[in-house]
């Protein structure tokens, strides 16, 4: 620029001028540009060329405003456009009709892909909507308590708090404006006139409950609902249950019903009726009554207890903007010191307890504490589903792109002719986008149909009440339309750009514009599909193999044909058991406080004696009360020592310890993990050792084999069983023949002893399987969606192979003429695909291996990812490919070479 001859006139920047010409109204252009140029020259004359140029461009940019800009579209052009779109639609529909098979493949692929995506989206959206309806949801926290062992390890994290926490926290901290505790007391019978409803779950709640949670009242008001001690709040369904379907006409607010439990009957007044609690809430109550009522039954100590007895679901509401971590910290620093201080043993209470204030909105997806009120969802599951859903949608799009481009050779001449007549690239792109949107629009009704058809199955399976009604719900319809257009554009974009780029001469000559063996974008698309397919197959294989591992694994006890009966009333246990055992099909029976597949909740501190000195243990040692037949009934192996004998339940251990006195019988059997934890590698050595367990002392009489008492998610922990009447369940081993008859017998016998409540029982193997229900569900759902993805992928693959063969049809013809066998042609086609499978394998495997080993880490006892599991997806992918290739190749090689070589 600077080397220009000095005499030459400087000229304004040409791009600015072009910009001006582009946007400025035509009849303004001449004089305005003239003015600008004149002034530019005036400034430039002084030698300030750069300044002049800047000034010139700047003035033009400032001219870019509505009053100066051309009218965008003159009227006649819009008409032209619409008529072109009519033409695109017509051609598009004709093409869809002409290539019916690929249309069907496309429509099926897109509609199932989209339907599966929407179903997953519904599920994910539902999972994320939990507890959001409460007005103050952001300010509500659940008070949970962590317990620590003597060593400072976390032993249990409870979802509930103690009775006295709610009021004390509210009184002590100004940030906490409201607090509420819930307690489900006694499940009383509800009596309305002559109708009796046994064992209804009445929940007693603190008075702040309606200030914290937002429930919708149908009758009555939150202010007055719990004013009186004897008031009862119903929900719509419990109102229907107690008062019948016409409860609204009965004016039930003010009506009296009686609550009866533990021998006393108290009249309660119905003060309000609420709507049923929404499904998207992490707890559901049907009856609420004021907690003050319980003061009649519980001692003041029990109502104000601050340590242990975590049965009180407790929530606080804080003032907006409170610093929760700081609040938690100060509660942990002060609360335990203030209300408990030190234990008798001299240990400080604050070392053993911690508060954790858990945000209400996190509970459903992120909380897995001891004693959750209802089964919560899992954020991992939501993530896994989201990933699968997005993959499905991507696979469907990619599939469409593949198929659409693979048909390009058929459309090449059409594109060529259009170009010759004068079609712009943009109008060609518009045409192909119109066609691909057309496909999505055709897929849409099918997709809606599929969603409506599949939703009940999904709901049933996931125990959800998801609703899909696109006409009613505009908020769901709009994103759906967005997805639809998005998919249309995404799916049409690549073929649109690709086809519009074809070289005109080549297109009309009928040459292959693109060499099929070249590595290009479409190869990446196919590879992507392989990656998804291989990844999903691998994931299914790992999940299935873990589930298989669990189903076949030996938890150390016999769980088949064992019925576990709940004990409700009180009656003579011995007689009951003997009466049952008299039946020929009942083999064994044993009472216990807990059964395998349950949780190990109760535990005391333990010490063991070496000579006269007691050694404190630091590990947690949970206890289960059993009778003498427990090990027999569950066929648990005894490694050392002896079984419990008759009499051991009452016989006192005779040793005197000098200081302590022994009031409870103390014969213990421990598991081998416990023996090792006590320091005895050989179980025989610990037999006879004296152990102090909680307030009692006793001797180890037996060591039993380790069993997976809890699920395989957790490690086998030390445990202790004792022969002591604290029974809550009866486990009955029955013969596999005539199960129905045996169950009837059990029910009838139970009814003789406990006339109040019906017999409630479960099969232990079912309970065992229920422990892994979440995984079972996950694996089934992933299987279903993965199979859909794989099927869509296969459809695409068949289309792709067809395309490759079509582009190579002449090559195949020539080869055949020269004497090539079907086999060698088969090799020719498949080589390329096997390469893609290989690349996909290398990409997919590390990713899915990483993800799945993360999932496996949730299990303590788990399967290994072996060579077979790794090879399986590849072998399957290869097999699927080869089947598709063989089919197409055989079809191609059967054609007489003359057919494909004659035209040129």
């Amino acid at each position, binding site marked *: 620029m600077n080397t220009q001859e000095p005499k030459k006139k400087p000229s304004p920047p040409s791009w600015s001028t072009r910009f001006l010409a582009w946007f400025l109204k035509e009849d*303004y252009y001449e*004089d*305005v540009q003239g003015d600008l140029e004149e002034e530019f020259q005036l400034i430039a004359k002084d030698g300030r060329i750069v300044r002049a140029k800047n000034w010139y461009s700047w003035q033009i940019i400032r001219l870019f405003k509505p009053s100066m800009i051309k009218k965008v579209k003159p009227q006649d052009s819009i008409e032209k456009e619409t008529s072109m779109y009519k033409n695109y639609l017509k051609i598009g529909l004709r093409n869809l009709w002409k290539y019916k098979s690929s249309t069907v493949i496309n429509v099926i692929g897109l509609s199932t892909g989209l339907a599966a995506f929407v179903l997953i989206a519904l599920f994910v959206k539902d999972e994320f909507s939990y507890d959001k309806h409460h007005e103050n949801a952001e300010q509500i926290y659940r008070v949970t308590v962590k317990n620590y062992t003597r060593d400072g390890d976390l032993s249990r994290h409870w979802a509930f708090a103690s009775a006295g926490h709610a009021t004390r926290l509210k009184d002590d901290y100004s940030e906490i404006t409201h607090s509420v505790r819930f307690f489900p007391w006694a499940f009383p019978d509800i009596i309305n006139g002559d109708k009796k409803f046994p064992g209804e779950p009445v929940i007693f709640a603190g008075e702040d409950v309606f200030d914290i949670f937002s429930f919708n009242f149908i009758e009555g008001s939150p202010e007055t609902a719990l004013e009186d001690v004897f008031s009862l709040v119903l929900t719509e369904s419990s109102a229907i249950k107690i008062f019948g379907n016409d409860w609204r006409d009965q004016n039930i607010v003010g009506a009296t019903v009686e609550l009866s439990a533990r021998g006393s009957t108290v009249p309660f007044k119905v003060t309000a009726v609420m709507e049923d609690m929404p499904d998207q809430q992490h707890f559901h109550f049907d009856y609420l009554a004021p907690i003050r009522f319980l003061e009649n039954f519980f001692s003041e100590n029990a109502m104000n207890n601050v340590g242990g007895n975590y049965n009180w679901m407790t929530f606080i509401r804080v003032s907006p903007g409170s610093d929760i971590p700081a609040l938690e910290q100060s509660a942990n620093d002060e609360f335990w010191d203030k209300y408990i201080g030190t234990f008798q043993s001299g240990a400080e209470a604050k070392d053993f307890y911690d508060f954790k204030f858990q945000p209400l909105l996190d509970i459903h997806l992120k909380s897995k504490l001891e004693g959750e009120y209802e089964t919560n969802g899992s954020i991992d599951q939501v993530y896994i589903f989201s990933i699968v859903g997005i993959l499905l949608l991507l696979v469907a799009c990619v599939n469409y792109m593949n198929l659409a481009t693979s048909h390009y050779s058929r459309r090449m001449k059409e594109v060529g002719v259009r170009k010759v007549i004068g079609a712009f690239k943009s109008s060609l792109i518009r045409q192909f986008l119109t066609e691909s949107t057309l496909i999505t629009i055709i897929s849409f009704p099918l997709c809606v149909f599929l969603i409506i058809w599949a939703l009940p199955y999904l709901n049933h399976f996931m125990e959800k009440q998801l609703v899909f009604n696109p006409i009613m719900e505009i908020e769901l319809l709009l994103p759906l339309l967005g997805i639809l257009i998005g998919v249309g554009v995404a799916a049409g974009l690549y073929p649109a750009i690709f086809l519009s780029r074809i070289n005109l001469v080549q297109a009309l000559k009928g040459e292959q514009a693109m060499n099929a063996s070249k590595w290009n974008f479409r190869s990446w698309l196919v590879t992507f599909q392989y990656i998804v397919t291989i990844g999903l197959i691998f994931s299914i294989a790992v999940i299935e193999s873990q589930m298989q591992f669990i189903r076949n694994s030996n938890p150390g006890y016999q769980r088949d044909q064992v019925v576990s009966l709940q004990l409700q009333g009180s009656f003579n246990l011995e007689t009951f058991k003997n009466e049952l055992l008299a039946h020929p099909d009942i083999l064994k029976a044993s009472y216990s406080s807990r059964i395998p597949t349950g949780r190990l909740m109760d535990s005391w501190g333990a010490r063991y004696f070496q000579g006269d000195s007691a050694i404190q243990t630091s590990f947690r040692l949970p206890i289960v009360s059993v009778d003498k037949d427990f090990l027999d009934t569950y066929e648990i192996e005894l490694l050392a020592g002896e079984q419990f004998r008759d009499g051991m339940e009452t016989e006192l251990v005779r040793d005197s310890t000098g200081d302590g006195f022994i009031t409870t019988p103390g014969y213990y059997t421990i598991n081998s993990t416990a023996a090792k934890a006590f320091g005895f590698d050989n179980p025989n050595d610990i037999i006879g050792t004296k152990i102090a367990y909680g307030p009692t002392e006793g001797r180890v009489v037996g060591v039993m084999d380790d069993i997976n008492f809890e699920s395989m998610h957790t490690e086998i922990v030390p445990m202790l069983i004792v022969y002591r009447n604290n029974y809550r369940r009866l486990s009955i081993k029955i013969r596999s023949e005539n199960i129905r008859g045996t169950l009837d017998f059990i029910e009838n016998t139970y009814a003789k002893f406990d006339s109040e409540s019906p017999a409630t029982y479960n099969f232990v193997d079912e309970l065992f399987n229920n422990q892994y229900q979440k995984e079972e569900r996950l694996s089934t759902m992933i299987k279903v969606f993965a199979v859909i993805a794989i099927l869509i992928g296969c459809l695409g693959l068949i289309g792709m192979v067809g395309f490759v063969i079509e582009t190579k049809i002449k090559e195949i013809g020539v080869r055949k003429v020269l004497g090539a066998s079907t086999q060698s042609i088969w090799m020719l086609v498949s080589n390329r695909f096997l390469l893609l499978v290989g690349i996909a394998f290398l990409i997919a495997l590390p990713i899915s291996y990483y993800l799945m080993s993360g999932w496996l880490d949730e299990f303590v006892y788990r399967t290994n990812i072996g060579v077979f599991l790794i090879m399986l997806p590849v072998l399957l992918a290869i097999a699927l490919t080869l089947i598709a290739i063989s089919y197409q190749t055989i079809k191609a090689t059967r054609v007489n070479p003359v057919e494909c070589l004659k035209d040129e």
Partner: protein
Amino acid sequence: MKEYQLGEFEEIVLLTVAILHEDAYGVSIKQEIVTRLNRNVSVSALQTALRRLEKKGYLKSNFGEATAIRGGKRKRYFKVTKAGKSALDYTKETRMNLWSAIPNVTYEYARA
């Protein structure tokens, strides 16, 4: 009378066109405003005002000669129409009416 409403800048442009009489085109109008009022004007603002005045019927324009410095583009000369003249008169008159209506007391307050 509403139809005679003129914006402040429009008034200046209209007056300048009147001053320049037969020689009013984009560059000259701009320079006249710059020299007389010591006020910087962008091409965009000027053009907008000119076109608006023309639309209102206060100005009319026709193409004049092309010069080399303009890259061969013709000038567009502007002339004040009868309506434009009336608008200027009207504006001036209303201003004068306002001026004369100010009582002397106001200035004393202002001084204080």
